[in-house]
């Protein structure tokens, strides 16, 4: 998050670079596959509910002395998830980049999975993992970590895949020319080249992840309630007890944790990773980090660093990579056999898709009717209209402010880290405060619960617009000043086209986040007062709480389709327009 970037977004948002607007058959097939997997897990989870119910977790108490430990547990969960995400990234993205057949499935799957509201899926995973480790807290831990993982992994994997696919041709030739083993090639070429994009995406993932860690610690599925020790559970207990002081305490601790993670972990990494930027010219403005500077200046550390470097060098030179794979110039694949292999592969995919379709039909026919589908779509449209109105409102507010800040370097350097901090801050920690106000003032929940959906996500718009305005070329600004462009003309013809790619990136992230947030934002409680706004989010939340798996699957399916449709029909064309017409380099 808190990285002040002057350049363009390191990697384009997932899937925006794609060609077509309309979904093709392949998308449909992948979508069915993903849905099929959900159905299977839901089915499995259903079977496992019974043993899970026996879990008795250690109760959460609102004793401030426990809060540091809870914060630590939350942070550890977060790191466990990021490590799993990184492993997933290295394996899956490498596989997709090296194998054409794997690529055909993995890349569209990443695109769809990133649009699936994973929060709604939490119920299955909790039950599933509780079933795997009956009666132990470990299952619940796994479920929470898995939930965070599913919110983080996709864009990281996609970024890494994209980097692997765009390794500069001359460096690829050098590596092949000097016959670097695949292992050495990975450490000398691929990993360093992918590092900036991957680190940026990991930061974005983590800033989204705080939201999920809070949401996934305290979960009620049917009659099973799991509360893992952590800030999220503390918050849930505080809400039940109507303890506003405990809520405020949680907000403060959360802020401290995020600040520490940013200053102690990510800034140093970003400052260090600056050397991997693929540029042949020295940049004027480099990312700085006081921790990194300390590290480099410290006396002890200066002894330690070479040791780490030595170990890293040894690892990179390990005789792995199956001798020196003389990957000669790839021989032109025999078109006949490769065509046959492609056909077989296609056939296999089709067979699995057919099986998935059959499972879905079986699953839904038993308990769902056409009315259910219509109801879900109706609720979906309600939530859609909320998202649209709120993102539009947030844009109207934050775009002018972001431009104003971005064009003033002194303001940008101060505000940008704050905006990125706010984007990382899990807005659901703040929800209880808003709910208290709504309850006290007897406001209409259908309207007043809605802003919670963009509470945490609007900042993505702000900091992307700031980045865009900061990168706007001075000469173009000077020209428009010289020609005395009037203000409306200046907005329409100069600055808005200039920041459009950045704005689209920010708005896309914000929209996706808002859909996810709707699942926790449309239903809120304060003690025994329950507030709900009609919408797809509350539909999924209610169905989860009741353990009604078919309706959860239906809700998630409808939401995924809407998110994908939004991306394809609005953001992707806009992004392509911005790329084609308003490129500034």
């Amino acid at each position: 998050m808190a990285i002040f970037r002057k350049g363009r977004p390191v990697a384009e948002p997932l899937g925006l670079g794609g060609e077509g607007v309309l979904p093709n058959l392949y998308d449909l097939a992948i979508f069915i596959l993903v849905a099929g997997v959900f159905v299977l897990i839901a089915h499995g989870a259903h079977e496992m509910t019974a043993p899970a119910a026996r879990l008795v977790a250690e109760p959460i108490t609102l004793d401030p002395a426990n809060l540091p430990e809870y914060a630590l547990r939350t942070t550890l969960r977060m790191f466990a998830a990021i490590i799993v995400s990184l492993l997933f990234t290295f394996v899956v993205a490498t596989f997709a980049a090296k194998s054409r057949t794997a690529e055909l499935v993995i890349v569209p799957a990443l695109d769809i999975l990133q649009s699936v509201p994973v929060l709604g899926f939490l119920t299955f995973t909790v039950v599933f993992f509780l079933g795997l480790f009956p009666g132990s807290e470990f299952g619940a831990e796994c479920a929470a970590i898995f939930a965070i993982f599913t919110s983080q992994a996709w864009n990281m994997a996609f970024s890494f895949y994209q980097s692997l696919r765009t390794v500069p041709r001359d460096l690829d030739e050098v590596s092949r020319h000097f016959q670097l083993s695949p292992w050495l090639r990975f450490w000398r070429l691929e990993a360093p080249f992918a590092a900036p994009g991957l680190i940026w995406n990991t930061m974005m993932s983590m800033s989204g992840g705080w939201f999920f860690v809070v949401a996934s610690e305290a979960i009620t599925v049917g009659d099973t309630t799991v509360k893992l020790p952590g800030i999220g559970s503390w918050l849930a207990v505080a809400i039940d007890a109507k303890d506003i002081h405990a809520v405020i305490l949680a907000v403060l601790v959360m802020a401290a944790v995020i600040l520490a993670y940013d200053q102690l972990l990510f800034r140093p990494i970003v400052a260090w990773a600056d050397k991997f930027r693929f540029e042949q010219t020295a940049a004027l403005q480099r990312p700085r980090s006081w921790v990194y500077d300390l590290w480099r200046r410290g006396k002890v550390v200066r002894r330690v660093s070479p040791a780490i470097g030595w170990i890293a060098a040894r690892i990179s030179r390990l005789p792995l990579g199956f001798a020196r794979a003389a990957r000669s110039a790839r021989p032109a694949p025999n078109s006949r056999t490769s065509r046959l292999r492609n056909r077989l592969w296609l056939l296999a995919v089709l067979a699995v898709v057919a099986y998935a379709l059959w499972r879905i039909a079986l699953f839904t026919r038993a308990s769902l009717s056409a009315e259910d589908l219509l109801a879900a779509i109706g609720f979906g449209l309600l939530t859609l209209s909320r998202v649209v109105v709120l993102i539009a409102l947030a844009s109207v507010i934050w775009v002018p402010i972001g431009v104003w800040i971005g064009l003033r370097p002194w303001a940008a350097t101060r505000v940008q880290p704050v905006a990125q901090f706010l984007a990382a801050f899990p807005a659901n920690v703040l929800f209880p405060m808003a709910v208290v106000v709504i309850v006290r003032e007897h406001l209409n929940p259908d309207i007043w619960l809605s802003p919670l959906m963009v509470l945490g996500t609007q900042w993505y718009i702000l900091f992307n617009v700031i980045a865009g305005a900061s990168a706007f070329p001075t000469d173009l600004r000077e020209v428009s000043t010289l020609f005395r462009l009037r203000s409306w003309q200046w907005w329409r013809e100069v600055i808005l086209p200039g920041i459009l790619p950045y704005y689209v990136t920010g708005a896309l992230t914000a929209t996706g986040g808002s859909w996810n947030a709707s699942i926790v934002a449309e239903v809120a409680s304060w003690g025994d007062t329950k507030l709900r706004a009609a919408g797809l989010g509350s539909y999924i939340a209610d169905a989860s709480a009741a353990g009604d798996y078919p309706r959860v699957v239906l809700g998630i399916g409808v939401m995924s389709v809407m998110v994908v449709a939004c991306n394809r029909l609005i953001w992707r064309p806009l992004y392509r327009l911005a790329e084609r017409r308003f490129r500034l380099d």
Partner: protein
Amino acid sequence: MNTAASALVEVDRVRQLYPKGSGEDLLVLDDVSLGLRNNEIVSLLGRSGCGKSSLLRIIAGLMPASEGKVSIGGRTVAGPAHEVAMVFQTFALFPWLTVLENVEIGLEALRIDSAERHKRALAAIDLIGLDGYESAYPKELSGGMRQRVGLARALVVHPKVLLMDEPFSALDVLTAETLRTDLLDLWSEGRMPISSILLVTHNIEEAVLMSDRILVFSSNPGRVVAEIPVTLPMPRNRLNPAFRQMVDDIYALMTAKPAGKQAQGVFPGTGISMVLPRVSPNLLAGLMETVAAEPYKGHADLPALAGPLHLEIDDLFPVAETLQFMRFAELAEGDLRLTDAGRRFVDLDPDGRKRLFAQHLLAYVPLAAHIRRVLDERGAHHAPASRFRDELEDHMSEQFADQTLRSVTSWGRYAESFAYDEATGVFSLDNPS
């Protein structure tokens, strides 16, 4: 071609084809044979797109030849070979590794232990004049210094043959000259652990300055059209009359009309499926003005023209050939002579120039005439670019089709023969008068 048994590198009837979407494959190298002996510098001289870089990559084992074979020291090449090391036009340094680490990378891949690796890398850095820069990152170095790193990295693995792919073309004139001189000094003093050098270049003077033999490549498809031994004593002087004469002769050779081809045939392909070079109308007008003015007065010697304008043959030839193609000039024996139309063009005002250009465009560029005809025939005077792109792609690669379409669009816009809307991808007669 001398392909004696003693040859260090032997290229035997290599052909290289690139598969196209439709139609027959694109022939890049046609039946190329050559031999590289011990202790010589050989230049492969040709224009961009003649396949000389592909040939170098085939020799290096970076890509397989479609037909024919390459052997080094008697062994057939199948995959990257240890006996050769390559220097890249773009330097191809790892920006995240220091100079020392960049130089060591080839040794690392060979699993040479760290003390030995260090010793050899430092020796190479020393040899190439990079002392003191061991811990610098490439982005801190100038272009010339970076190419020295590329050279050290190639030499440190002790190859028999050094392959150089236009190693000086990304450098400014002075830096390139310094580096050439340094390389020749090291070579003549025998301080580099190599037996011979194969240099790919499009710079005629560079080839004459550095090599013992020059192999001149033709374009489309690439084949060796001449082998020229250079016997001038080293170090060579560019102002020496014999040097100048040789440069002139090579210019003449490279602008000679190939036997059996019509004047039409300057560009590959025929009729509307001709591959057109990317040359802006401004450049065409600029060259005509230069040739019409003092001291050339309508008749210029290409080497003399290239020198003061700092034009490489890759910049100059396409412009000159386009002028010839549109009958604004004649190109022969290394000379460019304006036609009457060319002289008239220079004297006209901007509108008159456009009208004359339009006449020649529609008369001599079949694709432009074709587009105009289609637009005239259609009631709405609109036609999508994809229609023409598809036609072109039946005969050429996607990339060439794109280039050809862009060229004809830019010429048509200048001549106001037709308009093109980038957003919709549609040709029209909307704004022409």
